[in-house]
């Protein structure tokens, strides 16, 4: 098992000098005195790309943390990667919640320790901005990433979190919109305001994540999340508070809203495009997904390599491999989220031509789905997340957690 290697190394190599030992033996006695110092600055000095990559070698193994259900169960793209390069991938579905995952890694990264992950997926948002500000992420050596440079969609290069994608490589994007179950909702849902409709009292699901819920409050008020101010946050929070106080919200979901929506526990809910597409495709449900007229948000999950990665070269290779259009298409066919490689749409159409029957229909639907390949008009209604300055997160999240966690 790869995760045991740091432990093994720790046991087999003399990692502590004599002075370290002395310091360590004094630690218990000095525990009280020491602990009075608080926690010092958490940042690392930023590294230049050349310095970081100098002398780094391939190890033949890498550990990759990602969201659950974000690759096919057979892990086909990873198997192909291993075939092509000989590098083994230990793939873990450990990211259940970006904030909690990042929070868990924080102390290890601050101490400049290995996190056990050589690369992981985060989302363009508060946590990623913080990691960038603290210098925890390795600069990507794009000169060694031919597929990435050739195939990454132009829109992704121009994101506000990491302009030029110097530290991050988009994995997939999705839309946070509204999903509803037509079995219970007897009219067409078109706007965020429908989530405030007293007719759906106790049947509306909202997301518990501060950034997600903030976006919907802001959009309802006609404010663009990306440029919102603290005053806007307060106003949005007031709207969300009223929705809660009126008993309209059934629950605030982290990511487990699909089953309640299918069961009828909630009738309409904030939802991620790919989840609804997958549920309809796999469970045969007829859930509807809409990009509300006030707008919705597009989020992007990105792959990144921590500076403490033990296999940065292997990770870089895997990232680049996932940008091969045929691999990206395969990935998209399973996860049904928006791929960062525009060419994917054509590849999926080609796959559809080669397939037949149900499979062909499914692939054509996918290539034509606005949930996976949004139209220009829909793109124009999609906004980025609120950009919160690192160090200011608490003032943002506290405003919204006061609603979702009261």
């Amino acid at each position: 098992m790869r995760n045991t290697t740091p432990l093994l190394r720790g046991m087999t190599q003399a990692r502590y000098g004599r002075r370290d030992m002395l310091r360590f033996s004094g630690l218990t006695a000095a525990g009280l005195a020491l602990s009075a110092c608080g926690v010092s600055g958490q940042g690392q000095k930023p590294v230049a790309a050349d310095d970081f990559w100098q002398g780094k070698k391939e190890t033949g193994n890498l550990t990759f943390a990602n969201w659950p259900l974000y690759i096919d169960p057979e892990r086909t793209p990873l198997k192909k990667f291993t075939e092509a390069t000989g590098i083994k991938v230990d793939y873990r579905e450990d990211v259940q919640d970006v904030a909690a995952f990042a929070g868990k890694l924080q102390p290890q990264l601050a101490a400049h320790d290995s996190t056990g992950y050589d690369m992981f997926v985060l989302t363009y948002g508060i946590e990623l901005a913080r990691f960038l500000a603290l210098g925890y992420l390795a600069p990507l050596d794009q000169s060694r990433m031919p597929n990435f440079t050739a195939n990454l969609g132009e829109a992704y290069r121009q994101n506000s979190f990491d302009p030029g994608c110097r530290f991050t490589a988009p994995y997939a994007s999705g839309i946070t919109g509204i999903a509803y179950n037509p079995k219970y909702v007897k009219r067409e849902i078109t706007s965020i305001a429908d989530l405030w409709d007293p007719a759906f009292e106790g049947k509306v699901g909202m997301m518990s994540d501060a950034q997600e819920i903030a976006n919907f409050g802001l959009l309802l008020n006609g404010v663009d999340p990306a440029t919102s101010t603290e005053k806007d946050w307060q106003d949005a929070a007031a709207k969300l508070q009223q929705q809660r106080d009126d008993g309209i919200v059934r629950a605030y979901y982290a990511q487990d809203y699909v089953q309640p929506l299918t069961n009828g526990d909630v009738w309409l809910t904030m939802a991620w495009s790919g989840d609804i597409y997958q549920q309809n495709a796999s469970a045969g449900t007829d859930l509807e997904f809409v990009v509300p007229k006030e707008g919705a948000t597009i989020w992007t999950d990105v792959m990144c390599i921590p500076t403490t990665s033990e296999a940065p070269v292997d990770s870089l290779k895997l990232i680049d491999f996932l940008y091969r259009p045929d691999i990206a298409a395969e990935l998209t066919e399973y996860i049904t989220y928006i791929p960062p490689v525009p060419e994917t749409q054509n590849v999926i159409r080609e796959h559809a031509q080669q397939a037949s029957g149900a499979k062909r229909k499914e692939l054509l639907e996918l290539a034509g789905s606005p949930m996976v390949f949004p139209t220009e008009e829909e793109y124009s209604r999609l906004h980025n997340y609120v950009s919160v300055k690192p160090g200011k997160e608490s003032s943002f999240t506290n405003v919204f957690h006061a609603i979702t966690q009261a």
Partner: protein
Amino acid sequence: MRRKLTPYLLALPGWAWLALFFIVPIAGMVSLSLTSGNIITGFHQTFNIGNYTEALNLYSEQLFRSLFYGLSATLIAIAIGYPAAYWIAFKAGKHKSTYLLLLLLPFFVSFVLRTISWKFTLSDQGIVLGTLKNIGLLPTDFAVLNTAPAVVLGLAYNFLPFMVLPIYAVLERMDHRVVEAAHDLYASRLQAFLRVVLPISLPGVFAGGLMTFIPTTADYVNATVLGGPETTMIGSIIQTQYLVNNDYPIAAAITFVLMAVLLIGIFSYARALGTERVMEVQAK
């Protein structure tokens, strides 16, 4: 000389363990709870008592709610667990261990999975509520999921074995002749239970109560999975402050407030029931 030292030497690993993994971290947390700053600039020691007042101001509601949920879950666990333990100890005969195993069997399944399966069971149109609604016993908009009762029942269910086992252990060791003696002295079955069996079993109830009340009060899984907008417990707040907001001082301050409240509660509880008897019975 050496003989005198032996017990201390034997106790040494235990003390070292406690010092390293309990006392040092606790001291570190106390210190952390008094710092100010943020994750970018670091947290600096300023002996900022304000963290505690802020924690209490912002989260006293969730704190009292958690205590209330914990207490309710504990009482429900006693109400369900005591008869179960009593029955297994006195009436199950030679199949005692089979019944104990059956009782514990569901708890071999992961805690989170068990909690999530309640979500299916209690769903508005699910096997229980859906059926009752179809035959007209419940109004169609009746719901259990995402309410306080769902959270409390989830807690009581998940921690039931911690209540049953200590009570069972005490009852099982009880000398049956004392009950016969009570009957010989013309006690009715109820009197024999109230005046003989119950007092003997109280230490088990005490131990079970502690083992249920403390973890249920600090739990956050049940509230997250089964709860709704009005059921956030203090455990979720600590988790959010620590992992999501990275506001370590506030998280540490809430932790200590919770710990203090629990300790005060437990000491008064121990006073009321008398801890010496607990020790006495455990020693036998």
